[in-house]
């Protein structure tokens, strides 16, 4: 490499050496407005993540993704596998909402809300700082040979990292098995729940690897959302940048012809991805605002205006003008609202039970004395976590005679039942397509749902009424297979 190893440049990643090896970043401490705000934001996000599985709404955890039983509890609502479209639309709304925010505010997600940043900068790096000291000490220690002191520090740090990773992994698993079950598993031998134990161990291992060693490499090389955001932003999206017109040419503080930037490199040493923000917007920038605080600190000491590095738009840095409204915001907003609207409509039409009409096994119909008989089963699934009382009513059709031996029944939470139904029609009436329709009512909530199925009959039903020339129709208990399984 022709450039000096310590100088970040646009020609290569600052965190990879010329031989392909890692160059570990040791960000310096920083003080300032955004730095003061961060522990509160991160603390709130971590508390939210940690608290959700513990909160109970309607006798179930606020968020419980029960994959084993394909049942999802979200803030008091119970969803089954059949409700997957609702999840799709809700995620569509959330996704486009995030895209909308990216177009307006740039990579605020990366710098402020992404779990990678929240846990890395808010937890793991804090532990590292406490044990290994500030940047200068950490750099010196990295070059030192493995003394007893260095080894003991490293062991202590890695042990804490492992414990932290195990804790986060357990909390994560709790979203899928619930806290009581997790506690049960934790107090039992791993051999009694190998699959869950393995998941927990693998997740903890990945977290440890990521937060102890891999770190910013994930954002720079693996994360697809970081790259995707580049395509969502434009010249009017908020970025963190350097006011080149004000800062250049760089020079000593006492030089009257120089710009405001004194080239102290504070913005470089505090950067968690090791870049020099003064070289312009780069894909490595996770918009964490550490450089803003670092620069403002220096500017205040020099008695100069703050904001040489600041949140602004590319257009703002170059022309001083800002524009909020542009077409892409409308597209993103419309797409997001469409998703939310669809999800809202589905939630408002949410029925706490599933009802289907099934045909019984065997021939789909039978004909006796010109009466066509269809045997059906109304399959009802109670999707609620409480008992349900149900009533089936036929929607009247003069041509259809329905026998409903069991019109009223109760179902346990998540219980299901197949209720037999006999449907009889005159063969001649099948000349037109007949549909038998039922209304299923949950009597406690008075929620109802209409289900229907076509009445099947012999193909000749559409022709003239069967006469004695058709020998097959003369036979008693004439059962014919309509070809349906």
């Amino acid at each position, binding site marked *: 490499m*022709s*450039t000096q190893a310590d100088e970040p*440049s*646009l*020609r290569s*990643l600052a965190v*990879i050496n*010329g*031989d*392909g*090896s*890692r160059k570990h970043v040791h960000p310096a401490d920083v003080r300032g407005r955004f730095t003061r705000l961060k522990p509160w934001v991160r603390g709130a996000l971590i508390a939210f993540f940690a608290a959700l599985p513990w909160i109970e709404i309607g006798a179930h955890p606020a968020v419980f993704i029960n994959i084993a039983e394909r049942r999802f509890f979200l803030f008091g609502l119970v969803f089954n596998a059949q409700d997957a479209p609702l999840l799709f639309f809700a995620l569509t709304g959330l996704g486009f909402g995030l895209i909308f925010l990216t177009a307006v505010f740039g990579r605020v997600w990366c710098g402020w809300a992404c779990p990678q940043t929240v846990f890395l900068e808010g937890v793991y790096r804090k532990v590292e700082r406490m044990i290994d000291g500030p940047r200068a000490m950490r750099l010196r220690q990295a070059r030192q040979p493995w003394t007893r002191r260095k080894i003991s520090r490293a062991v202590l740090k890695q042990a804490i990292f492992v414990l932290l990773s195990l804790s986060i992994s357990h909390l994560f698993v709790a979203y899928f098995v619930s806290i009581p079950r997790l506690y049960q598993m934790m107090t039992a031998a791993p051999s009694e729940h190998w699959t869950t134990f393995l998941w927990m161990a693998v997740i903890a291992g990945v977290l440890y690897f990521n937060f102890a060693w*891999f770190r910013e*490499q994930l954002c720079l*090389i693996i994360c697809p959302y970081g790259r995707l955001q580049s395509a969502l932003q434009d010249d009017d999206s908020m970025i963190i940048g350097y006011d080149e017109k004000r800062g250049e040419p760089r020079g000593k503080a006492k030089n009257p012809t120089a710009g405001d930037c004194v080239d102290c490199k504070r913005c470089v040493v505090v950067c968690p991805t090791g870049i020099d923000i003064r*070289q*312009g917007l780069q894909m490595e920038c996770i918009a964490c605002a550490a450089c803003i605080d670092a620069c403002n600190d220096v500017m205040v000491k020099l008695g100069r205006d703050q904001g040489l590095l600041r949140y602004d738009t590319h257009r703002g840095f170059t022309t001083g003008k800002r524009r909020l409204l542009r077409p892409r915001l409308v597209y993103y907003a419309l797409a997001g609202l469409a998703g939310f609207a669809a999800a809202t409509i589905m939630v408002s039409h949410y029925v706490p039970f599933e009802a*289907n*009409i*099934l*045909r*019984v*096994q*065997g021939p789909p119909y*039978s004909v*006796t004395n010109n009466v066509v*008989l269809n*045997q059906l*089963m109304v*399959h009802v699934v109670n999707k609620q976590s409480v008992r349900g009382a149900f009533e*089936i*009513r*036929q*929607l*009247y059709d*003069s041509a*259809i*005679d*329905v*026998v*409903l*031996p*069991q*019109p*009223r029944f109760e179902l346990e939470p998540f219980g299901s039942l197949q*209720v*037999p139904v*006999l449907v009889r029609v005159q063969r001649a009436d099948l000349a*037109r*397509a007949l*549909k038998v329709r039922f*209304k299923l009512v949950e009597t406690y909530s008075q929620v109802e749902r*209409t*289900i*229907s199925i*076509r009445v*099947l009959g012999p193909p000749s039903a559409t022709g003239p009424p069967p006469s004695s020339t058709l020998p097959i129709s003369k036979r008693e*208990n*004439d059962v014919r297979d309509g070809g*349906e399984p």
Partner: protein
Amino acid sequence: MSESSPGLVDIDTGHEYDGIRELDNPLPNWWLFTLWASIVFGACYWLYFETTGVGVTQLEALALENTAASAELASAEAAELVTADGTPALSLADTLTALSHNEEALARGKTAYDQTCAACHRQDGGGMVGPNLTDNAFIHGGAPEQIYKTVADGILAKGMPAWKPVLGPARTKDVVAYVMNLPQFPAADGKAPQGPPINEAAATATAGTNNGAVNGTVNGAVDGTVNKASDLSAAGTDAAATDAADTDAVTKDNVQAP
């Protein structure tokens, strides 16, 4: 920006896309490690599963599991033919007769009966849509194996569904055992007998070995309702429900109206 990035000439590949130039930087070592590790893994996988045949592929594993499952099913069905005291290999009729004296089987049978059969045959077996099960007449034969056939395969022309696919072999036998005992408790207001009467001798033999498990189940409180279409005209919901638009494509198992 190129002025702030000196010395690009040596690594510039000359590829440019929409103003984005491709630079030939070294790949991270960890990235190269995953690449080589994947290649080694792929070679081992290929040798293990595809070349040497040592490994069991998913299709082979499925075939093995299917074989094991059918063997297990066969042994389970064979085990069902063993009575509680371990006497092996009874005929179907003997098994059912044995079950009809087994209190546990009768309790299971009653549960299944109440859930599935009572809807048409009434809870006390007096008959409603379906025939009376408490008299000595059975339309399709009253011998144990005949009742079993009726319950298991159904009498589709008359509206009796095939219950074996729903209940499974074990519960079907329990229900049949329960039904075999029903004639000992004639329903007070049951339907008139239909079909030929069953063998008087067999009936008395069964009655002689009656046990108490079923006693509590016979009482007349039944609220089964036959919802004839005419009953529902008062519900006042779309009387002329005609769906002319229906085609043959709508012969799916469940068609739901919005």
